[in-house]
């Protein structure tokens, strides 16, 4: 498993994704080796819940810009991973890369060891930037295209991303696989709920409802849409809006809040620790995800796991998670009126909110359960290993094609 982020190094959604996927695969008896970037205080090698984690020195080479840093980091990652695989006598069945950030390492290892390469495309450059405008972006776009070309299967976490990736790189449909992202409901169940009332008072008055936003304060997350919806919600319900996260739009957003005269109803917390976040999600009467672009929308799943009713914009993978009025409320994207309507609807109708809560919780346990996702991933590995064993390219005489009996190693 090649990834540029793995706990405790957490930059975005890839880190928890790879963590839970590896852990669940390991629990099923798959030997998982994760090769990732180093992090201050984290050991270069450790076994974490059955997963072998190797952290490579990723800031060894001075780099003029981020993309060059990525490619240089891949030189070291590839070197370390090659050593690990050689020490296993080449007995690795599968290489699994996450995003273009580990593209060159994954592609190089595929060819020198002749093993099938999988890639999970969590996002794309063309999606992040809403188009390709500069050479820098085109270079990354072409690296992503190359990675999907070299991969045996390209995994996406939502139907939306499957079609987006197909459009972006022109992939044949039979090369693509949809396996959803998951969420771990246990962390919310295990939460210490004794002092929750006390905890809630730090954020809102007892008579106020809490509406929660969690995410980076950047344009594509649509926080400005939420802020514009606030006055309309306040006309009907006494509510405190808690906005968790940081980003380049922070100044602009607090300016907007002042202009609208709603400063006393909005709280910007900045970045908070995991426990505070989980407690907030548990306390929230509504969790809002107003994104303009969202490949998946893990934060909506987290809210569902925390039994907080969700109001989401009907876009990308986010719209696929929620069935309108059954396990959440879907509103029009980039539309403050619609968003205000959705929030008010849930806040005013306790019975409806309760229904949504329980349906949503049931859904995440069934569909977005990591054990189930690991099982789907394993089935995909197995079927590809059968194809691989029959190919001219396969290395004969290694254990590689008996994955289903021994549940062999993968990196």
């Amino acid at each position, binding site marked *: 498993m090649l990834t540029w982020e793995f706990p405790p190094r957490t930059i975005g959604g890839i880190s928890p994704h790879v963590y839970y996927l590896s852990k669940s695969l390991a629990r099923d008896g798959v030997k998982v080796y994760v090769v990732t970037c180093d992090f201050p205080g984290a050991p270069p090698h450790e076994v974490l819940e059955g997963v072998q984690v190797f952290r490579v020195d990723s800031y060894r080479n001075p780099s003029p810009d981020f993309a060059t840093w990525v*490619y240089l980091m891949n*030189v070291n990652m590839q070197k370390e991973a090659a050593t690990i695989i*050689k020490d296993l006598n080449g007995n690795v069945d599968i290489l699994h890369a996450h995003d273009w950030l580990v593209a*060159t390492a994954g592609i190089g290892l595929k060819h020198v060891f002749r093993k099938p390469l999988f890639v999970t495309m969590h996002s794309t450059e063309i999606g992040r930037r809403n188009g390709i405008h500069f050479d*820098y972006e085109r270079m990354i776009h*072409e*690296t992503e295209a190359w990675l999907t070309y070299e991969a045996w299967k390209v995994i996406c976490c939502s139907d939306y991303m499957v079609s987006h990736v197909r459009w972006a790189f022109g992939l044949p449909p039979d090369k693509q696989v949809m396996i959803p992202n998951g969420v771990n409901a246990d962390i919310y169940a295990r939460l210490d709920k004794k002092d929750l009332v006390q905890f809630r008072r730090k954020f809102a008055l007892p008579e106020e409802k809490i509406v929660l936003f969690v995410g980076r304060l950047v344009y594509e997350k649509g926080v400005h849409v939420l802020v514009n919806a606030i006055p309309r919600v306040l006309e009907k319900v006494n509510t405190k809006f808690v906005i968790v996260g940081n980003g380049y739009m922070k100044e602009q957003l607090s300016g907007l809040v002042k202009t609208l005269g709603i400063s006393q109803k909005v709280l910007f917390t900045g970045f908070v620790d995991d426990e505070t976040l989980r407690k907030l999600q548990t306390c929230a009467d509504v969790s809002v995800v107003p994104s303009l672009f969202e490949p998946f929308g893990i934060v909506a799943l987290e809210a569902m796991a925390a039994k907080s009713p969700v109001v989401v914009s009907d876009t990308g993978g986010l719209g696929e998670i929620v069935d309108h009025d059954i396990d959440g409320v879907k509103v029009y994207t980039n539309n403050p009126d619609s968003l205000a309507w959705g929030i008010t609807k849930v806040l005013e109708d306790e019975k409806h909110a309760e229904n949504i809560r329980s349906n949503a919780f049931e859904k995440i346990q069934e569909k977005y359960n990591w054990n189930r996702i690991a099982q789907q991933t394993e089935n995909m590995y197995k079927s590809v290993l059968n194809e691989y064993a029959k190919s001219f390219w396969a*290395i004969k005489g290694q254990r590689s094609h008996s994955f289903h009996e021994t549940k062999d190693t993968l990196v």
Partner: protein
Amino acid sequence: MRVVIFSWEYPPRIIGQLADYVKTLASQLVKHDAQPYVVTYHDYLTGEYDEPEGTRTFRVNNPVHTHIGVLTWVLTLNQEVERVTANIYYDNKRQVSLIDVHEWHFIPAAVTLKKALNIPFVYSVESLEDHRSHGANTPYNMAIKSIEWLGMYESSKLVVKSGWMRDEVFRLYKVPSEKVNTILPNSTGWLKNILTVYKDVAEKNHLGNS
């Protein structure tokens, strides 16, 4: 002996004096039954494989066409060098004696192949970033120097083309003198000396099998 030569320039694509040097080296190796394979960058004119004068020559193209600099161009070309060399390795019963990498461009590929497939490599130094950039220390130059350092560290032997360069390699990278072989091009016994280095590296391969 089967030796794979990496060079970013090779005729007909001539950038500097390295192209002709590598060409001469390869054709001399053919005459001495050393089975050279050359892996180089493509040139739009020659195909991806040919055998001029018995030198098996592979030319690779970069799958990523748009670049922001030489570094990103080089770092995305290395995987194609690895792919072609791995093919040579698997097509020849895993018998590749060594790699001779000229200049820094394909050092990442040589390092990976060493770690993955136990193929040792010789780093033939033509010039150094410190001289090319007149001692500039921008992150860009430093990045190239860090790749040169990687090559000096991971290679089994260094080949330099002058006594001056031997001293510079020591001054800039602190490479122990016993690792450095000074072999002047055009000198008598030039090829014999290179073959001696190759044999030495191939026979004393401490990496294991291969």
